């Protein structure tokens, strides 16, 4: 079956992932899934000024998901909405178990995500960007978190629901996945499907996550190894020496 935009059922839209795109943030990343564009920046771990929010055992994670006013056809009213508050919460909970928060008691790690352009699956793009940005900031993590949506149109399971498909799909099911621990850390669903189909859709989404996971690793490698190699080349050398001279 060909999809509305010509993709194969298990094909993700063109993916662009780039780490370290901002200078001031400790870590950052931009992720594009088709036209959907998310940019994430990480600050911290740093001091949490409000005492009553502190946790003496671990750092707290703050995630802000925000749609930029010009990101959709109809202008989005700036500021938090019910939708963005909920998405911020589920993204935070998807990332929490991957980060070694216990290493920074009383501190805060902040993840700021802006959706620059929205065309379906913004939370998924946001989550992928946040995960790269956290690793880019040198924050200790047990795993990267990857995220992808899947759905079902008529008899076909489709990966990365986008554009007009959103109106005809039987369900829209975003999943975040930690590939190493094989754990699903974000799971939402809008739709109406029998249990059997839901299971198949989740499994397809996990497959999508695994594809995106490789791309996330590649994005980080491109930035860090690429940077080192470029500097080395400029100096007429070819070797990276790691910690030792």
């Amino acid at each position: 079956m060909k999809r509305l935009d010509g993709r194969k059922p298990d094909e993700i839209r063109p993916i662009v992932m780039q780490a370290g795109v901002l200078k001031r943030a400790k870590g950052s990343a931009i992720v594009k899934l088709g036209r959907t564009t998310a940019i994430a920046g990480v600050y911290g771990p740093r001091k949490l000024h409000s005492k009553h929010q502190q946790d003496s055992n671990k750092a707290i994670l703050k995630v802000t998901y925000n749609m930029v006013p010009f990101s959709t056809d109809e202008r989005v009213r700036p500021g938090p909405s019910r939708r963005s508050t909920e998405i911020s919460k589920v993204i935070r909970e998807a990332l929490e178990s991957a980060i070694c928060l216990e290493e920074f008691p009383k501190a805060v790690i902040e993840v700021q995500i802006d959706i620059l352009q929205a065309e379906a699956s913004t939370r998924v793009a946001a989550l992928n960007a946040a995960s790269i940005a956290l690793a880019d900031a040198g924050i200790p993590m047990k795993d990267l978190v990857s995220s992808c949506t899947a759905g079902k149109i008529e008899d076909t399971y489709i990966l990365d629901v986008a554009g007009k498909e959103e109106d005809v799909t039987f369900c829209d099911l975003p999943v975040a996945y930690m590939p190493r621990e094989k754990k699903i850390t974000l799971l939402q669903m809008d739709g109406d499907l029998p249990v059997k189909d839901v299971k198949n859709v989740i499994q397809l989404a996990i497959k999508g996550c695994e594809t995106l996971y490789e791309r996330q690793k590649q994005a980080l490698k491109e930035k860090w190894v690429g940077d080192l190699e470029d500097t080395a080349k400029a100096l007429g050398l070819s070797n990276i020496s790691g910690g030792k001279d």
Partner: protein
Amino acid sequence: MILRNQYLVDIALTGKRLDERKADEFRKIIIEKSPLEKPEGSALVKIGTTQVMAGVKLDVKEPFPDAQNEGILMVGAELSPLASPEFERGPPTEDAIELARVVDRTIRESHAIDLEKLCITEGEKVWMVNVDLHILDNGGNLVDASCLAATAALMNAKLPKYEDGKVVWGEKTNKKVPLVCKPLTVTHVKIGQNLFADPTEDEESVATAKVMIGTKDDGNICAMQKGGGDGFTFQELEKIFEKSVELGKQLRKQL
């Protein structure tokens, strides 16, 4: 309170529960239908010590431009400070928003309300169904109690009289809100490697992850939401789906 947490985790790890329920057993559910007169529909649901009051208010509004011939559904939730020392007055918190949106999604995606039947004049006047959830006592598992309350309140909601382009408050007609199915959610939490349905507040406080599954009468899933920092494996989810559908059927009988 503080010392009990570790104890709770310890017994949860052995697969037992403090109130000696089975892992897939709900607490006692009491549904009081139409306890209030002012709202068009209402219900008080108690699951164990949790108490949620749902009220349905109807009003006539202009339809949304992208759905000219459909009524409007709105779900709101308030975590009243009398329900828990942790709740405060003020703008809705993250938890309240999530609660309302999960219930909203369950009802909306199950197409339980035939919104087209709520149209009075296409493009001009439609009924707007406002479901407000008021949490009175937090004993855990607010989502299931809220969804149960919302469905129960919708089931007995009657349209008010509508005359000469105006709603006549206080005079209810015999026309019911067109409900085609009874959507419900079932919540499971994960403590250690064990899964428990219908968690109490204490169990929720030590749980590492939580998942709410919205189901319909035909056993289909219509909404899902994962909460909490930890994740679930696919095998765990398979088990949860099966249990949720089964528990959903049991709950539906009580409506």
